[in-house]
């Protein structure tokens, strides 16, 4: 069975939910303390939370820990690497994904449901979505305002939209360039998302739209 490591830093707090969502999607998942090894895993997930209390910049200190060399190796080998929220911030801070996540346009913590337009279904993480589909997931972040010098060079996977899929200024919760909510690297095996798919992985949570992201990832890792 395919096994994923869910990396836990001091301050990570979405590890249990993420582990559960991966299991529900049909793979093995284990929470792994950041000081231990990543061998024997087929993929790695950096879950949400507040690593190192978000001191300095969100994700900055976690990005400089030794374990990230191993995550880099995973990415180089073409294995799946998923970063959710704080995990996305860590991936941009390590340079595994382009750009940076700045404090929200209105500087406060945002915790609410958003609509997302699925832009790219040609990735191992989104193969089970329909192109242009509108899905629902929650966001929970203070630094989710995505910035990149040249957004045309970035593979955007999800964009903040309204319920009909219109990508408008009003539907942009945090000020991200081009309403970008999730991106994938050029090769397609490293994904960063500010919205939390694990918090949309069960009907009792209000949506199952996030589960398909894990299912796509697991299906791909199995091959």
């Amino acid at each position, binding site marked *: 069975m395919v096994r994923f490591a869910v990396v836990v830093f001091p301050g990570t707090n979405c590890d249990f939910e993420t582990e559960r969502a991966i299991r529900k999607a049909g793979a093995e998942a284990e929470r792994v303390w950041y000081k231990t090894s990543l061998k024997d895993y087929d993929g790695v997930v950096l879950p949400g939370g507040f690593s190192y209390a978000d001191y*300095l*910049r969100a994700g*900055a*200190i976690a990005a*400089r820990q030794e374990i990230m060399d191993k995550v880099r190796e995973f990415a180089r080998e073409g294995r799946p690497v998923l970063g959710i929220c704080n995990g996305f911030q860590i991936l941009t*801070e390590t340079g595994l994904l382009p*750009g*940076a996540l*700045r*404090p*929200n*346009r*209105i*500087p406060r913590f945002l915790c609410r449901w958003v609509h997302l337009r699925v832009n790219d279904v040609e990735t191992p993480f989104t193969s089970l979505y329909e192109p242009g589909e509108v899905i629902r997931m929650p966001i929970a972040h203070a630094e989710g305002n995505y*910035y*990149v*010098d040249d957004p045309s060079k970035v593979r955007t996977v999800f964009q903040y939209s309204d319920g009909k899929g219109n990508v408008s200024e009003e539907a942009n919760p945090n*000020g991200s360039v081009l309403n970008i909510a999730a991106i994938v690297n050029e090769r397609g095996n490293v994904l960063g998302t500010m919205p939390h798919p694990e918090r949309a992985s069960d009907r009792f949570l209000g949506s199952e739209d996030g589960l398909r992201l894990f299912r796509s990832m697991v299906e791909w890792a199995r091959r």
Partner: protein
Amino acid sequence: MKWKVTVIVRLKEGLNDPEGRVIGNALRNLGYAVENLRVPKHFEFELESEEPEEEVEEMCRKLLANPLIHDYEYSIEPVS
């Protein structure tokens, strides 16, 4: 040799500084004609080093600033 180092990291010109905007607005509401308030980060530390310039530059690039969105400057003085 020991040095006293001060590093200032600020968002690049043209990038919106939300915290600065809120604080600037609050000062304006108090009646001050404040404009373009920015909130840089200020670090102070002591450093034992033979090549402090080189090391401080490296620290800024590696961790203290994110060169994509930040500019930085520093001063280095001997600890007397």
